[in-house]
């Protein structure tokens, strides 16, 4: 196995952070438990029917993405909203930065948007003097810590209350107690003031409805609801695949999303908004901008990875994954962690940077089983490994010779038996306590994390004839 040093450094760092590992294990365990209870209440058969329906809906949309995008754009424009089509992250960032300049925006409040993390929007806006504040509690905590999210739906899962109190005390005039209720109370008070002085609001998009141009936002805290009510100018950033035909399809997705993410029947606040307020209305945005981002998504259409565009970002695959549960989110490097991140990062950011994430899996398939829209994540991870090997021929000449030798040896029984006899005879300098304990690289790498038993005195195929004779006698 070839792992890039950067990934190794990242997961080694993660493995040494015991507080983080404990928090991630606890958090993912709870979320998995809550999801299981929710599914039990629905009934396994009905749950499977929900998943089948959701998969069919998403497949249809992705294979007709051009039509639905066209319909969505026309409806948003008709409703009075502006639309920016951004092929790259830079185009999206430029559009929003220019808008902030034009509006002379000082205070920008954001609700959770993974795409905005993906395109590095906050640093660009901060650079031009805007005060950008994340309003989702978890996002705000990691913003204060100067970190990136470690989980799609619980971004600050890796922090404990004492660390959060330290972060809050750095922006508070009075000392905040470490009780969780007090910490949340402080966040409410502090952020409420910011909400009331908002110049531009920026939200993500859970689903856009093509037939009405409505944007759906799902938050348990209500922050996205407040932002879309109070922002004079509202910007919604969406990955171009986050479309559904209409309201009926939305009900299926909302039912699956909440249960898969947190085990709730529905997220507390689900908002459907068509953008600009009517003339007689007093709240809601006067100006609405929908930024539709491609940034590598269109390249997946028509490929064996197309189904990754079905993702509804519920985070369920993270909680199911034994690797994620043992290393947390930051080890994955880019903004999307866990199995979904291990697939998305190399596809969107390049195999050269993130190809090694295809090895951050046990290929157990738990992610695929957990996915509400039935994305075959573990098959994709396996395919990515193949692609990586094809692309890089990682071991070069040495690996080539090794595999050719291996294949020649295993091609005939006599060669195989001869090689085993030789290996058994000459393995003794490498053996300790019946295990292969030493070896040259890359075997030494492999041995660092795994046990390899020494070759036994007799193999099964050598014992079998004797047993067979005994049986016959």
């Amino acid at each position: 196995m070839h792992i890039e040093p950067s990934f190794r450094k990242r997961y080694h760092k993660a493995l040494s952070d015991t507080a983080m590992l404990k928090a991630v294990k606890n958090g993912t365990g709870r979320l998995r438990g809550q999801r299981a209870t929710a599914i039990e209440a629905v009934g396994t058969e009905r749950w499977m029917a929900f998943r089948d329906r959701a998969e069919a809906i998403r497949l249809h949309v992705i294979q007709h993405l051009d039509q639905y995008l066209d319909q969505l754009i026309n409806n948003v424009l008709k409703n009075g909203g502006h639309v920016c089509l951004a092929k790259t992250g830079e185009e999206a960032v430029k559009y929003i930065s220019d808008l902030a300049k034009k509006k002379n925006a000082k205070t920008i409040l954001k609700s959770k948007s993974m795409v905005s993390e993906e395109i590095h929007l906050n640093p660009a806006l901060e650079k031009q003097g805007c005060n950008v504040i994340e309003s989702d509690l978890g996002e705000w905590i990691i913003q204060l810590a100067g970190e990136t999210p470690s989980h799609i739906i619980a971004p600050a899962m890796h922090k404990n209350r004492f660390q959060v109190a330290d972060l809050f005390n750095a922006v508070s005039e009075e000392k905040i107690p470490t009780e969780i209720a007090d910490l949340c109370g402080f966040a409410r008070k502090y952020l409420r003031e910011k909400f009331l002085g908002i110049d531009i609001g920026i939200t993500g998009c859970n689903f856009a409805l093509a037939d009405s141009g409505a944007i759906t936002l799902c938050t348990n805290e209500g922050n996205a609801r407040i932002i879309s009510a109070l922002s004079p100018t509202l910007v919604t950033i969406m990955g171009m695949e986050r479309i559904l035909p209409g309201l009926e399809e939305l009900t299926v997705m909302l039912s699956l999303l909440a249960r898969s993410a947190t085990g709730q029947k529905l997220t507390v606040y689900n908002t459907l908004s068509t953008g600009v307020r009517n003339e007689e209305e007093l709240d809601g945005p006067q100006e609405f901008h929908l930024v539709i981002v491609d940034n590598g998504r269109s390249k997946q259409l028509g490929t064996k990875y197309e189904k990754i565009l079905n993702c509804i970002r519920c985070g369920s695959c993270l909680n199911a994954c034994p690797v994620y549960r043992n290393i947390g989110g930051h080890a994955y490097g880019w903004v999307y962690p866990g199995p979904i991140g291990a697939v998305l990062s190399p596809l969107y950011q390049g195999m050269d940077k993130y190809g090694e994430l295809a090895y951050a899996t046990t290929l157990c398939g738990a992610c695929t089983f957990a996915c509400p829209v039935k994305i075959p994540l573990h098959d994709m991870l396996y395919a990515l490994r193949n692609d990586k090997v094809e692309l890089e021929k990682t071991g070069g000449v040495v690996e080539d010779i090794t595999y050719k030798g291996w294949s020649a040896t295993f091609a005939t029984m006599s060669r195989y038996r001869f090689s085993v006899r030789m290996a058994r005879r000459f393995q003794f300098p490498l053996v300790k306590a019946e295990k292969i304990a030493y070896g040259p690289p890359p075997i030494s790498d492999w041995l660092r994390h795994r046990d390899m038993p020494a070759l036994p005195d007799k193999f099964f195929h050598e014992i079998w004839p004797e047993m067979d004779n005994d049986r016959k006698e």
Partner: protein
Amino acid sequence: MAEGLLAGDREAFFSTIRQNIKTPPGGKAPRVENPMNGLFTQRETTVEERQDLRERFIKEWTTLGGKAFSIKNRVELAQVIKQIIQERQLQKAMYWDHPELENLKLEEIFSDTQASVSRWPLEKKYNDWIGKAAAMEAGIVWGDIVMAETGTLVLPASSPGQPSTVCVLPITLIAIFTTAQLVDGFAGVVKFFKERYGTNLPTTTTFISGPSRTTDIEMVLTIGVHGSRYVYALILDEA
């Protein structure tokens, strides 16, 4: 309303998408006819069945952390509202400009309490109403349609007098509705929306299932981080 503007090269944006979309050997996945079929309860309900739905809603709503009251008449309504005013020590409340709430004459109920109540709009200009709205301790809304299975208020901003600000800014939310507003779940909501709006949806619709919640610190459930912390459902008999 004036049409919005499009930025970016529409042709270039779409050309990659169209080039890359392929038709798989079996053909493209067809649109799912009736996506909700078999997944959600679909039925017309009788008055008696809606009594059961009320019980179901109360169970869900209270599990989520809300409080619910079954109310027979206006006298009981006044008693419950006064109890909430007392419980939450309310001074200021605002309510939707909604014909059903108008019929309930909320001002009269509030008149012999410590609290005042104002109907939306509080002021005409943003800078004037925003401060006033932020100072309100309770928002009172009419539940146009309510889902029993999930304990969800569905609040379309059907007119300018029914903004989402009233249901999300104050720390206390009071939703009033009759059992006639109760449906099982999404099937009833979609039917209501199709009949009333078609694809011409109101500017905003808010679905609220219980109080604002977060588990962002140590996965411990904490109520009321941004939206309402105290949520009350006042369910009137439909007769």
